[in-house]
C-alpha cells in the first residue's frame, strides 16, 4: 500500500513557533536532565497492549495484592505478634476477663476498639482470598489459550511460584490472630510436619522452638508473613511483569495481527486509565465485601486452647484441597523399628501437594516435550483448538474440585442432610474416576466445537430467517460469517503440520513420545481446506439462487437479515 502524497496539507500552514515552556515542562526537563527517564518513558509509555477481558484476570491479582499491602500496613500498626498471656479487657463483652495471648487480644482490639480496624481486617482477609483466586483463574486463562508456550515458559514457572507463595502467605496470615480456628490450623500444620518420616519431629521442634505450641510460632509466622514472603512476592511480581513487557503481551489472532506485532492500545493514555480504573474497582469491591460480609469472626472463635476445637474447622479455600485429601485418606499407618510412619497424613498433605505443584510447574515443558513444538508463539489459541490440552486442565480442575468438596464434607453433610461417611466413600473413588471422565468429555466437546466451527465456515451461520419457496418448502437462510472472524478462526496449524513441526524423536523414550504425540492430536478436526470451501460454496449456490428471489420481499423485520443496509433503520420505534 502506497501513501497518497499528492494531497497538500491544509492544516499547519504556518510555521510552528516554540512557545515558552510551562512550569511543569520546566520541572520535567530539570528531572530528565538528571535522571534521563524521558527516553525510556517515551518508549514504554506508548507500549501497546491488546484488548481482551481475559487479559485482565492477572490484573485482579496485582491490584488485590496492592490492597493487601495497604490494609496489611494498617494492621501492623496495632497487631502485637506475641504469645505472652494477658487478660483481655477490651470492648467485647463475651470474652472480657478471659486469659489469652497478646496476639489474640490485639486482634480483638483491632476488631472492636480501633477505628476502622474491623473493616481493614475484613478487607485484608477478603483481598487475600481474591488474590489467590484471581491468580488461579489467570493461570487457567494462560493454559487454556496456550499463552505459556515458548518463549513464556519461565513466566509460567514464576507465576506458579507466586501461587505457591500466595498460598503460604495466606496460611501464615490465617494463623496470626491465635484464635481457636487459626490455632487449630497451626496445630494441624504441626501434625503435618511431624508426619514426615524420621525428620518430621526435628523440623517441628526447630520451627516451633520446642514442643507445640511454645512461644515462638506467632512471632516467627509474623516475620514470615510481613517480611519474608511479601518481599519474595514483590520481587517475583516485578520479574513476572518485566518478562511480560519483554515478551510483549500475547494476542488473539485476527486481521492484521501476526506473530511479530501487537495490535492494541498504548499504555498511555488508554491502559493507564483502564488499569488505574480497575484498581479502584478492585479496591471498591474489596471494601464492599469487607464492609458487608463478616469474615473470620475471631471473637466468636475465642482464644486458642489446644484442648478445644470447633465443628466447621476449615482452612481458607486455597488450602481446602489438601485438607480434603487428608479427610478422605484411609487411615494407613506403618511401624518400622519403633518409628511410626503416618501415611494417612504424610501422603495427602505433604506428598500430594508437592507432587501436584511439581506437575503444575512442569506443565509447559511436558506439553512441549510431547508436541515437539519449539516455535515461538505470540498468538493465542482457542481452547477448542487444543482438545487434549484443554482436557488435561479440566481433568486437573476436576481433581481439584473433588478434593475441594472433600474439604467441606461436613458442611455439605449438614447443609444437604447427607451422610458424611457416604460423601467420603464416594469421593475416594471420585478423585480417581471423575478427572478421567472430565478429560474425555472435555476433549469430545472441544472436537465437536471444532466441527461446528468448520460447519459455520463452510455453510455460514444460521440466520434464523426462514424462507418459504413458492412451492411451500421452508429453508433456513445461512449467511456467511464475517471475514475477520473466519480469518481469526482459521489462523491455526493443522494437526498434520503440528505433527511434523518438531524434530523426529530419537533416543530412549522416542517410541513413547511419538505415541503420546499421536494421541495428543488424535481426532483433531482440521480447518477446512480451500477445496472444501469451494465445494461448499458450489453446493450452497443453488440454495442461494432460490432464496435470492425471495430477498427484498421480506415481511416486517427481515430488513435486519444482514443483507440490507440498516444504518437508517431505527432499532426501536419512537416513543
Amino acid at each position, binding site marked *: 500500500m502506497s501513501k497518497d502524497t499528492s494531497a497538500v496539507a491544509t492544516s499547519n500552514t504556518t510555521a510552528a513557533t516554540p512557545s515558552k515552556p510551562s512550569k511543569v515542562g520546566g520541572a520535567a526537563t530539570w528531572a530528565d536532565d538528571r535522571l534521563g527517564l524521558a527516553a525510556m518513558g517515551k518508549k514504554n509509555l506508548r507500549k501497546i497492549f491488546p*484488548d481482551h477481558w481475559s487479559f485482565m484476570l492477572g490484573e485482579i491479582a496485582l491490584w488485590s495484592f496492592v490492597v493487601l499491602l495497604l490494609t496489611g500496613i494498617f494492621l501492623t500498626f496495632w497487631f502485637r505478634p506475641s504469645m505472652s498471656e494477658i487478660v483481655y479487657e477490651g470492648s467485647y463483652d463475651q470474652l472480657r476477663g478471659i486469659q489469652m495471648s497478646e496476639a489474640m487480644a490485639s486482634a480483638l482490639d483491632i476488631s472492636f476498639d480501633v477505628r476502622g480496624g474491623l473493616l481493614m481486617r475484613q478487607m485484608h482477609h477478603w483481598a487475600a482470598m481474591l488474590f489467590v483466586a484471581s491468580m488461579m483463574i489467570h493461570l487457567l486463562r494462560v493454559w487454556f489459550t496456550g499463552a505459556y508456550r515458548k518463549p513464556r515458559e519461565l513466566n509460567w514457572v514464576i507465576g506458579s511460584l507466586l501461587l505457591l507463595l500466595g498460598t503460604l502467605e495466606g496460611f501464615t496470615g490465617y494463623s496470626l490472630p491465635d484464635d481457636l480456628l487459626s490455632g487449630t490450623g497451626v496445630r494441624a500444620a504441626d501434625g503435618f510436619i511431624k508426619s514426615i518420616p524420621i525428620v518430621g519431629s526435628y523440623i517441628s521442634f526447630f520451627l516451633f522452638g520446642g514442643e507445640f505450641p511454645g512461644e515462638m510460632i506467632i512471632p516467627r509466622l509474623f516475620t514470615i508473613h510481613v517480611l519474608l514472603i511479601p518481599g519474595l512476592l514483590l520481587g517475583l511480581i516485578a520479574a513476572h511483569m518485566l518478562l511480560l513487557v519483554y515478551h510483549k503481551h500475547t494476542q488473539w489472532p485476527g486481521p492484521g495481527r501476526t506473530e511479530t506485532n501487537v495490535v492494541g492500545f498504548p499504555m498511555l493514555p488508554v491502559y493507564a486509565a483502564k488499569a488505574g480504573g480497575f484498581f479502584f474497582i478492585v479496591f471498591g469491591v474489596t471494601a464492599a465485601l469487607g464492609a458487608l460480609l463478616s469474615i473470620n469472626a475471631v471473637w466468636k472463635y475465642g482464644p486458642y486452647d489446644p484442648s478445644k476445637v470447633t*465443628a466447621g474447622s476449615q482452612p481458607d479455600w486455597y488450602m481446602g484441597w489438601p485438607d480434603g485429601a487428608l479427610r478422605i485418606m484411609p487411615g494407613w499407618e506403618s511401624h518400622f523399628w519403633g518409628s511410626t510412619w503416618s501415611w494417612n497424613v504424610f501422603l495427602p498433605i505433604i506428598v500430594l501437594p508437592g507432587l501436584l505443584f511439581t506437575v503444575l510447574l512442569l506443565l509447559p515443558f511436558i506439553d512441549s516435550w510431547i508436541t515437539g513444538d519449539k516455535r515461538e508463539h505470540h498468538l493465542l489459541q482457542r481452547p477448542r483448538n487444543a482438545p487434549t490440552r484443554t482436557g488435561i486442565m479440566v481433568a486437573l480442575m476436576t481433581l481439584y474440585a473433588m478434593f475441594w468438596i472433600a474439604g467441606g464434607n461436613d458442611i455439605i453433610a449438614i447443609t444437604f442432610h447427607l451422610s458424611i461417611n457416604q460423601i467420603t466413600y464416594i469421593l475416594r473413588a471420585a478423585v480417581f474416576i471423575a478427572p478421567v471422565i472430565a478429560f474425555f468429555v472435555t476433549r469430545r466437546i472441544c472436537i465437536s466445537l471444532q466441527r461446528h466451527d468448520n460447519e459455520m465456515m463452510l455453510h455460514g451461520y444460521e440466520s434464523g430467517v426462514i424462507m418459504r419457496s413458492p412451492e411451500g418448502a421452508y429453508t433456513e437462510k445461512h449467511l456467511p460469517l464475517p471475514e475477520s472472524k473466519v480469518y481469526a478462526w482459521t489462523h491455526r496449524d493443522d494437526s498434520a503440520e503440528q505433527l511434523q513441526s518438531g524434530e523426529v524423536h530419537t533416543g530412549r523414550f522416542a517410541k513413547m513420545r511419538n505415541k503420546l504425540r499421536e494421541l495428543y492430536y488424535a481426532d483433531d478436526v482440521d480447518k477446512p481446506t480451500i477445496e472444501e470451501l469451494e465445494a461448499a460454496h458450489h453446493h450452497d449456490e443453488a440454495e442461494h439462487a432460490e432464496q435470492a428471489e425471495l430477498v427484498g420481499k421480506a415481511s416486517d423485520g427481515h430488513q435486519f437479515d444482514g443483507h440490507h443496509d440498516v444504518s437508517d433503520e431505527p432499532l426501536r420505534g419512537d416513543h
Partner: protein
Amino acid sequence: MRFLNRSAASLSRHRRGRLAGLVLLLVGLIISGGLYATFSPASSATQSKTDAELVEEGRQLFLTGCSFCHGQNAEGITTVNGQFVGPSLVGVGAAAVDFQMGTGRMPLTIPGQQAPSKPGAYTDEEIEAIGAYVASLAPGPAVPDEEYLTIENLSDEEQQEAISRGGQIFLTNCTACHNFSGKGGAMPRGGYAPNILNTDPKHIYEAMLTGPQSMDTFSNGNLSPEEKRDVIAYVGSMRDMPGYGGFSMGALGPVSEGMFAWLVGLGSLVGFAIWIAAHTTRTKKKKGQEA
C-alpha cells in the same frame, strides 16, 4: 325493642365504615375463640391433679403412643439381632421425656440415623403426665427449675461474668460438634449436631443433663446447674449478638467464606473486567462532531 331497633340502626349506619370489616372479623374471632376455649377438652386438664392421677394419665398416654416401640412397661424392645426398636426408658427421668417430646423428636415419624426436631404432637400437660409416669418407674433427672434457665435474676456484673464463663465452657465442650456459633455440625453416618441458637433454654439444659442420641451427658457433677445456666446464657448472647462484621453467610466458617469470595468477589471482578474490555476507546467520532 325500640332500643334494639335504634342500636341496629346505628350499627347499620357504620356497617360501611372503613374499619367495619376489621371490627367484625375481630368480634368473630373473639367469639369463636372464646367458645372453643370454653368447650375444648384441653381446658379440663388445667385443674390440678394428684401425682397418682398424673402418673396414671401418663401411663395411659404412654400405652397409646409410646409402648409400641418402648414396650408396655417402658422396658424397651429389641429386634432379633439385638438392635433397639426403642430403648428402655426406665431411669431416664422426666427431663429426657420433656426434651424428646417437647422438641418433637418423639414420637418418631420414621426410624433413621437421628430423630429430627419437629413440631410437637403432644401438649405440655400430656408431656408432663408421661414424664411423671416415666419418672415413677425409677429415679432419673427431673425437669430443671426455672432459676437455672435464666440469668435475669443476677446483677449486671454477675450476668457478664456468667456469659463469659459460659462461653469458655461452651468453647471447651460444645463447639466440637455444635460449631463455634452454635449453628451445628456433621456427625458420622448422616447424624448431626443440631443448630441450638433457637432452642428453648429448658431443652438445652435437659439435653446437657440427659445426653440425647450422640450427645454426651453432662451430669450435675460434671457441669453444675449454675454452669449449665451460664452455657445457656452464652448461647442466648450469641443469638442476640449483632453481626459485628456484617452478614455472617451462615456462620459456617471458611467454607461459606470461600464460596462468597469466588462467587461474589471474583465473580463481580471478572464481570467488571469484561465490562472494561467491552468499553474500548472510541475510534469513530460521533456524528455531527466532525471537525
